[in-house]
Structures are given as C-alpha cells and as structure tokens.
C-alpha cells in the first residue's frame, strides 16, 4: 500500500523513539497462513551519536537490588550504546513459541521499499515472515507520521487507573488501549469517477476497521 510509492526514511517522523505494535491473531502474514505467529513487534530508532542508556535511577535500583540477592551485575549496561557512524533502526518481534525475529538496519536516507527488502545483519535472527513484518512496521510508521498531529497521538493514552499497591501486590497502571484504526476511522474519502462517467463525486466514509480500497479513491481529511 504505502510502500508502493517513493517514500524515503526522511518522510518518516518517529512519534516516539520506540514503540510496540500488538498484532491480532487474525493477522495473516502471508497468503498461506490463516493466523499470526507473532504476538507483537517492537521497533525503535537510535539517532547517530545519541547515547542509549537506561536512566541512572533505574540502574541504581537494579544494580543495588541484584547485589542484595547475591547476583553480580555486569557493568555492560552502565556504558550504554552509541551509533557513531549512522542512525540505526532495530526491530524485534516475539512469536507465540517465544522465538524472536529481529533485525537491525542503518537509518539513513534511502527508499523505504529498498529498506524493507534489505538483508539484515548476519547475526540477526531471521524468521520466515521478517520481510512482511518489516513492511508492516514501515507502513505503520508512515501512517503515524501522516497523523502525527492527531489528538489521539498528541494526547496519548487515557489513564483508567493509577498504579497502586493492594496489600503486598502491585497493581499496574491501567490505560485504554489505542488502536491504529481509531486514526483511520475518522477519515472520509472521495471516490473519483472515471472521466467517461464524470459528474457528481460520491462521498463515502470508512467505517469499522477497514482501510478502504486503494484504487480510485482519494482520501481527504476533515
């Protein structure tokens, strides 16, 4: 869909440095499969020269806590990472059998079509569907870029309950799930008739969670 065009990495504005896309079981990753073997896919970008490191308070808590229970942490995490030569994009998907499909590619100006088909680094864990997953991720990033000023993205996730302790048990914060289709649902589209049938334009709207036909339809924002 979106990858059929000449979009490049410069056209992608990451809404966050990293995000998770939860995948439904009904998602068929290729024409032969009827269900999705992957639970979710995480994707992130590390800019050139940007230090990638956990916050110091988390590291203090982690290292102090592990030492108390007799573990010896490796200082590996304290050093962090940098990518001095170019930005890097990392992807990681987890299957239902707890296997990972991961990839890492330089994030520098190039066509997204080309990036989607690029060989991953030699040590990456390949998965039968990794190219499909990478295309899906790039399409989602383009979609989020297109809607980057939408209130759904700007306002973030509505909180339902704050994190709290119930006796000795920690209850996680509860937030309302956000679906990609919430962005698409708000759009109307205009069906353009062939010249031979020129006349009134038909106005329709996308309902449910369908993405709509791509041929002969121009989308228009409200």
């Amino acid at each position, binding site marked *: 869909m979106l990858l059929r065009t000449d979009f490049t990495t410069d056209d992608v504005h990451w809404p966050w440095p990293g995000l998770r896309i939860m*995948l439904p079981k009904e998602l068929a990753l290729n024409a032969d499969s009827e269900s999705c073997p992957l639970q979710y896919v*995480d994707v992130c970008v*590390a800019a050139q020269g940007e230090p*990638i490191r956990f916050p110091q308070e988390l590291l203090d808590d982690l290292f102090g806590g*592990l030492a108390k229970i007799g573990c010896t942490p490796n200082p590996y995490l304290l050093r962090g990472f940098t990518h001095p030569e170019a930005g890097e994009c990392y992807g990681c998907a987890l299957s239902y059998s707890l296997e*990972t499909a991961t990839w890492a590619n330089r994030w520098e100006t190039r066509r997204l079509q080309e990036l989607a088909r690029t060989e991953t680094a030699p040590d990456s864990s390949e998965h039968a569907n990794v190219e499909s997953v990478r295309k899906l991720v790039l399409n989602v990033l383009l979609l989020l870029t297109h809607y980057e000023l939408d209130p759904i993205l700007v306002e973030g996730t509505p909180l339902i309950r704050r994190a709290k302790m119930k006796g000795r048990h920690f209850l996680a914060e509860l937030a309302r*799930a956000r*679906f990609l289709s919430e962005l698409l649902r708000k759009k109307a589209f205009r069906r353009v008739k062939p010249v031979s049938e020129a006349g009134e334009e038909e106005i329709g709207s996308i309902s449910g969670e369908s*993405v709509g036909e791509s041929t002969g339809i121009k989308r228009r924002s409200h």
Partner: protein
Amino acid sequence: MPEIDSRILDQFQRACPAAYRALAGRKFLLPNRCQASYSSQDVALHRRQLVLLVSTLSPKEDSIPLRSELINLVQSLRCEFPTTLFGPGLGRDALAHGFYDR
C-alpha cells in the same frame, strides 16, 4: 536467549522495585470483543524483565537479537512504552489491501 535462574526472576519485583515498576507498571484495557485476539500482556511484561536481567547478568554484547530487544527497551522506556494495537478488523483486511505484502 540465555537462561536466567527462576529464583532471580521471582525476587526481581521485591529486590528492584523501581526497575520492576518502570518495566511492568502499565497494562492496557481492551474492549471485551477484542481480548481474545491478542496475546497475554503478562507474557510481554515478563519478557521485558527477562531482557533486562539477561542483559545485566549474562550479556552477549555482539548478539544482535538481544541487543535489538535491549535497545527497544531503553528507547521505549524513555516515552513510557507507547503501544498501539493493529486492530483485528484491520488485520483481516491488511493482506488484501497490501499493507505489507507489496
């Protein structure tokens, strides 16, 4: 991924409360009709703890799979783990509309 002693995982929440809350402090409420379409959130939260502990206790610096999971963890933590769901309906239509197959 290297194995981690299950006792360490069991003690992680109590020994490192701030780290635990940072990683596992948020869940998402899904509409009832969608809940069966997605995997357990507990599995995903548990995986974050595992990645952090493996990276701390058994690091393999050259392993791209682990490095990829770890850097995803660091970058997502910066913005409180943004999560979006590919809707079940969108999932059914995605292949037909060439969302990732073209």
